[in-house]
């Protein structure tokens, strides 16, 4: 997934849409918005928003540290948690540099699934579909013709905390 910080308005629609789509309990979230302001008034001040969620890392410390295998990688590189195998030890939360996981009130660990239940139906993730500025771009990174691959070819991008070594798969377009 890529997210275009130039277009995002920080409206948080992606956050509510995820909540209603995935029954994320109130007070929790699988995605969230960060605002960054740099420089000073008036000439140099700059601001952008970013919508963040599990980066579906290629190198998954969360899966590695999971003692039960509840955290696992499914087809397409999506990292998922099997609720019935999760003991709620929190190791994966400690392991994730992005704070992408949370303890569901029922005890298991929950996180963004890239809406795999929608992908199965040929739909986009809920947050992608709802975004009023269409700044979330979803697709197959292995397919050079997919919109997401194209966006990464055409635009400058960055990832968060590359030094954490997780090889995150959520790219932020500048």
């Amino acid at each position, binding site marked *: 997934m890529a997210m275009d910080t130039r277009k995002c*308005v920080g409206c948080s629609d992606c956050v509510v849409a995820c909540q209603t789509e995935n*029954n994320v309990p109130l007070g929790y979230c699988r995605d969230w918005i960060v605002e960054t302001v740099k420089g000073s*008034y008036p000439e140099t001040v700059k*601001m952008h928003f970013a919508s963040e969620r599990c980066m579906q890392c290629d190198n998954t410390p969360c899966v590695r540290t999971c003692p039960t295998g509840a955290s696992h990688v499914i087809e397409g590189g999506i990292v998922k948690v099997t609720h019935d195998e999760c003991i709620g030890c929190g190791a994966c939360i400690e392991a994730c540099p992005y704070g992408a996981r949370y303890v569901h009130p029922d005890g298991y660990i929950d996180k963004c699934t890239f809406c795999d239940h929608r992908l199965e139906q040929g739909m986009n993730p809920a947050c992608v579909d709802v975004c009023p500025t269409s700044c979330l771009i979803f697709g197959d990174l292995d397919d050079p013709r997919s919109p997401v691959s194209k966006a990464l070819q055409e635009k400058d991008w960055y990832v968060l905390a590359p030094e954490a070594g997780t090889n995150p798969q959520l790219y932020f377009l500048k």
Partner: protein
Amino acid sequence: MKTTRRQFIKIAGMGTAGVAVAGSVLGSVQKAAERSISTPSSDSELFRTPTYCEVCFWKCAAWVYKDKEGNIQKLIGNATDQHARGKLCPRGTGGLGMYYDNDRLKKPLIRRNREDDHYEEVSWEVALDFIAKKMKGIKKDWGKENMAVFVHGSPAKHFEYLFKAYGNENHSEPAYAQCAGPREAGFFATFGSGVGSPEPADMQNSKCIIFIGNHVGENMHNSYVQELSLAIDNDADIIVVDPRLSTVAAKATHWLPIKPGTDIALLLAWMHVLIYDNIYDKEYIDKYAFGFEELKAHVANYTPEWASGITTIDPELIRKSAHTMAAAAPAAVIHPGRHTTWYGDDTQRERSMAIINALLGAFGRKGGMYMGVKQKLPNYPVPEFPEPKWTWKDITLDKYKNAAVGLTNVLIDASLPEYPKEHQIKGWFIAGTSFINTIPDRKKMFKAMDNQELIVVVDTMPMEMTGYADVVLPESTYLERYDYARGGKNRVAQVALRMPAVEAKYDTKPSWWIAKELGNRLGLKKYYPWKDLEEVLDWQFQKIGTSLEEMKRIGVKTFESDESIYLLPGEDFEFNTNTGKIELYSTDFAEKGYDPLPKFTRHESPDPGFYHLVYGRAPMHTFGRTQNNPYLYELRKTNDVWINPRTAKLWGIENGMEIWLKNQDGIVSEFSTKARLTERIRPDSIYMVHGFGHTSKKLTRAYGKGINDLPLITKVKIDPIMGGTGMRNNFVTFLLEKPKKEEVKS
């Protein structure tokens, strides 16, 4: 009655006590319990019904998805709808919180004695009989005309209809005199047509969009924001004039951090550059415009250097931005904005914007402003309405000659005891507006309320206003009811249906039902020949070649139109003005004694230690109506006050510090909030989001969170042309310690 006491509904001994008001946020939302499934269902397992959103007035068409048990799961934008384009904004997506909010009004309430705060739960019969009796009393003692109807949103039509049938046309909406009025008057004077909603700025095709204030992205009107995104995709230039680095300013090619209240100076300078650098659309002006030479002479001295001294904006930036827009013209547009009641000379500011749009050749051009088309829905046949003895016009138009509809503030003035008896208002009927949090100058508001013999409030939530009512009528939410279909002008003509997705919760009723039942009690049966709104809708739909049955299936229907939304090349176009042309020089204003060409007037600057009170929107909230919505509450619980770090330093204010605000008239905010130190604002201004600081304890989530800007707006400058309430002439200072109770006067 002393209304300055806050009198909120006592839900003492409510029949609905079974629904305990749980303390915790999670507990107070039943949804979590109702939707115990932990894995999401795929759409094929869900059922959907059409609606259009009522969380703001953009009215996006949507689908309500329900599970097998009939619980609402989610709301998704209707893909065929122009407003929604398959998406809802965060407020629309979270709209189901309106239905699930446990703090909702649940039963009709009557306060029989204004001296106490006791509200009695009554049946609809009792409540409506009570209102009818009181209304008849006012009719007998004063006249049926001596009542005012204050409405907003979908309930408006039903009650306007009721009162017209009753012989009263004193209805008004805050959407005019506190919102879009000046731009309607300013654009009408120039192009002979108002702007309307959605605003026909052709942003998705534009190469340059100019925003004066107008903080799109925070102002979250759905397709409006979508068009902005398309414009960014098209690499359109964006020019933003705002004292604050608004969201859109951060995306702009040019941000002009203007000194508040000086926009007309900038706009005049832009005209100067466009004309004197000869970069305006000469052909277009020659063909369509009237009064160019007068304008040219008028702006001769308004150079960027002149404007720079007033606006604090670098003259080069003024020049450069004018050239940027000219280069893109005619695919360039100054967006008319929406909330335009700022400083009292707002019609003239909007006139200036309209004039620049003319100079750019934007009106009727692709990428400029399109001319919307609409599908008219015929009225259900009923007998002619009675002619009222007097209407809002009789008490408005001699003063505010270009007011196009009733003015809330004029009707409030007429509600004061000292107003001439003949036109004095003695009863208020309020539906869908949180009136006391919407209209500035509370002192007057309270006085006017004291003078009323009847105040009825129709709302869905126990908002502050309900605490001042004699009768509170709980309306069903938009997810539980029918309303009139949505029409509206757009690029293509469309009609959208709202139907109930679920049965109405509690003892709530839709507005159409309330109006009809009240009509029956007022002897207006003949105006309600139909059984229910379904019948009316089906009749209307049949007339335009569809049916309720079809609309239930598709939600939105598009109608062919052979009108072009752009001017054809070389087309002779008759504008609806005195001269039939775009009036750069307004003959209408000249006739009526207003400035035919916009002039700059200097507005007050804050005293030392005071700062411009700048307010606006947060994308996830609508005014004061969504703070208690469990979903949207989670997104933003309170408003903070933006302060430039340099200003904060003078005060020793640190980021996150708790502060109170006090305005120039000594009004202190009821609650405190946190200071946000940010470079995103001018040092002479502070910024906060409107709609927070609720004082109604019945709003269990929203109560006490943040500061309400409205009580701090005590100085109001009325626009002499259309009567709008300029609300941005107010200044505030900081209190770093909790003020003593007596000081809190808001």
